[in-house]
């Protein structure tokens, strides 16, 4: 018994660190010193070119890139803010809440337009719309729907074709899914009707864009709603069957954001990395497959505003209400 307790005590510290990441990779291992720990919701495949470019400019910095889901990132950062240096996430609301709650390190003189940064601590560096991705085989004789309303009608017309073959985010698990859902719901009632229709078709729920696109590609599902266009574009390369639709009724555009953590032990490198993402990507869009934030006011018009209003749907009561409405619509 005593041994058991000793063993548990011995193992206990490792429970926290033995984290199960979706992916983790160390870049520039040769560099001395503690690596810059970047926790991100972006798949390594998409982000690696940026990191490699950054390292080629700053060869003394090594980077440990950790990938997880947006909601998980939020929880992990809140739980141990000193374990990471830089946070990158597509869930703008969770990022803004982290910044608002004081987890972010304000960085001076980063050349970001006012609408693409918040409180000098949270910076947007991509602009990515939510899309509908469909498998063309499902619409061989039919016109491919270009709006949500069109999609509702198409699904209603052929429920037998789409039953169990539609997918969207599980907003309870995915921070980005929740952000897209709440923003859609703000704009139009169509969202709820679409959810009801998808719910009636036994919608498959996903935690992440990646899984959803994989299932699309192998034919498990035929229609995916609110998939990140950037992911879809990379994954569907060479797969003619898939079509990415930017809904023409309204678009929900997310800006991927980055912040240095206040508790970072490596503020200089964190500052450099954030600065690189905000300025470097804008300078060389060919480096990254991620859609670069246009510095003109164009992105400002489309994107979800980076302001305290994002806190609204994170309110416990509000979230509870929204989730229950969503569950009522989707899970039948």
């Amino acid at each position: 018994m005593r041994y058991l307790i000793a063993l548990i005590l011995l193992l206990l510290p490792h429970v926290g660190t033995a984290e199960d990441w979706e992916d983790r990779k160390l870049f520039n291992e040769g560099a001395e010193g503690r690596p810059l720990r970047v926790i991100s919701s972006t798949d390594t495949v998409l982000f690696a070119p940026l990191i490699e470019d950054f390292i080629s400019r700053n060869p003394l910095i090594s980077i440990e890139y950790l990938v997880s889901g947006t909601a998980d990132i939020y929880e992990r950062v809140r739980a141990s803010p000193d374990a990471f240096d830089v946070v990158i996430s597509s869930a703008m609301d969770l990022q803004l809440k982290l910044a608002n709650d004081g987890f972010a390190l304000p960085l001076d003189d980063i050349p970001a337009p006012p609408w693409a940064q918040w409180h000098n601590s949270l910076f947007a560096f991509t602009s990515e719309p939510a899309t509908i991705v469909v498998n063309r085989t499902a619409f061989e004789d039919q016109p491919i729907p270009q709006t949500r309303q069109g999609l509702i009608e198409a699904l209603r017309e052929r429920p037998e074709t789409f039953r169990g073959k539609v997918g969207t985010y599980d907003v309870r698990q995915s921070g980005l899914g929740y952000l897209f859902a709440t923003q859609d719901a703000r704009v139009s009632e169509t969202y709820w009707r679409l959810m009801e229709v998808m719910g009636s078709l036994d919608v498959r729920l996903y935690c992440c864009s990646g899984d959803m696109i994989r299932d699309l590609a192998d034919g498990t599902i035929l229609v995916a709603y609110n998939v990140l266009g950037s992911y879809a574009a990379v994954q569907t390369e060479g797969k003619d069957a898939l079509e990415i639709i930017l809904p023409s009724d309204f678009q929900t555009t997310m800006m991927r954001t980055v912040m240095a953590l206040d508790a970072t032990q490596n503020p200089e490198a964190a500052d450099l990395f954030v600065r690189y993402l905000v300025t470097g990507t804008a300078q060389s869009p060919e480096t990254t497959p991620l859609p670069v934030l246009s510095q003109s006011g164009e992105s400002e018009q489309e994107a979800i505003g980076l302001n305290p209003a994002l806190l609204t749907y994170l309110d416990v009561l509000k979230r509870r209400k929204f989730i229950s409405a969503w569950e009522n619509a989707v899970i039948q």
Partner: protein
Amino acid sequence: MTVSPAVSGSLRNRLVLTLISGAALLAILLFFAVRNYAAQVAQQGQDNILEASAASILDAAALRDGQLEIDIPYAAFSMLATPSDDRVFYAIFQDGVFISGYEDLQLAKGADDGNWTFGAGELRGERIRQVNASRTLVGLGRQTEIEVALAQTQDALAETLDQISRNAAFLGLGFFVLTAALSFWVTTATIGQLNKLTTSVTRRGPQDLSPFRKPVPKEMAPLVSSLNSLMGRLDQSLSQSEDFIAEAAHRVRTPLATVRSYAEATLQRVERKENREALRAMVRAIDESSRAAGQLLDHAMITFRADHLEREELDLVALTHELVQRLTPIAEMKDLLLSLTGEASVEYSGDPILLQNAVRNMVDNALKYAPPDSTVEINVTATPKIQISVKDSGPGFPPDEIDMLTRRFERGQNATGTIGSGLGLTIAQDVATAHGGKLVLTNQPEGGACVILSL
């Protein structure tokens, strides 16, 4: 002889200093007044937005089937967006129990139904402005109180205040500079009136004791009137003393003539040598006294005439020529030659009696000091300016006294043994001054005195 007055402080500096320190004080007051007012207005603005936001959150609270729902409107936080991206904190309490938001945000006391309380505080190391509000919800057989605390950091407000402070500072500074310039101007204008009076006092001729008639500011009227009264008294006392001297000289001269004629008559009758010497000395003393009395009379006359100068056209050469003729016998008695040279005719407009008197005194002076068998040269020229010069070949003026010799009763050291009153050159100078000219005393390089009357 001028005694410089004892100076204690400067009216101008005192005025400028008072006005400028007044302006500085006002500018500082202005700065703080503007800033405080602006700060109040800015704070009011933030309070209004916080109030509206909190109201919209309270409005969204409802009891549905006995269950509390608060559907916070998107606009509630959206309206709290500021250019400086101020952080937002909120907390919702039901019957005093925290249910949502930021647990470390404390509800301020006194938030009764319908009552709003505003307060400043600190949260997570930042200064915040907080509003507290509450609302009572009544459901089926149940009553619950919802309280909301909403707080925002004050970065945007601080920035606005900075801007306002800067502008207020510029305003204050501008006000100060303008006022300072104005006070300099006002001071100069005020002191200018005094300077004007000073200039008009200084510019006056030595004999001018008439009262000031030019208009002066009210505040200076007492000064000018006392000045006028002082000058009036001075004028009166001067003319009294001149009158007295003239009267005295006149009274003395007549008996002196009588005494002289008695002395002359006695001299004819006295045989003894020492008695004759004594009588001769007596006659000489009497001569000197009567000459002095004559010159005093002349001087009084000249002072009077110079005050009321009556100019008439005259020929200076003719005037001098007449004088030379009159003085030639006296010159011959001393074996001296009077020579008149220069222009044939010099037209001038002046007082003939004064001018003649002046020239006569100049020639008299030369006759007195010129050695026997020499020539006294009188020269009248019109170019470059009208001048009458009298030169002798006597000992000349003592160089160290040359400036004092035109003062009244001032005689050169070498004048001992010569009859004279010390008034001759004074009279010549007074005449020159009355005509707007001057009298210059020099010594000739080859010896002898030279007196030039320039008109």
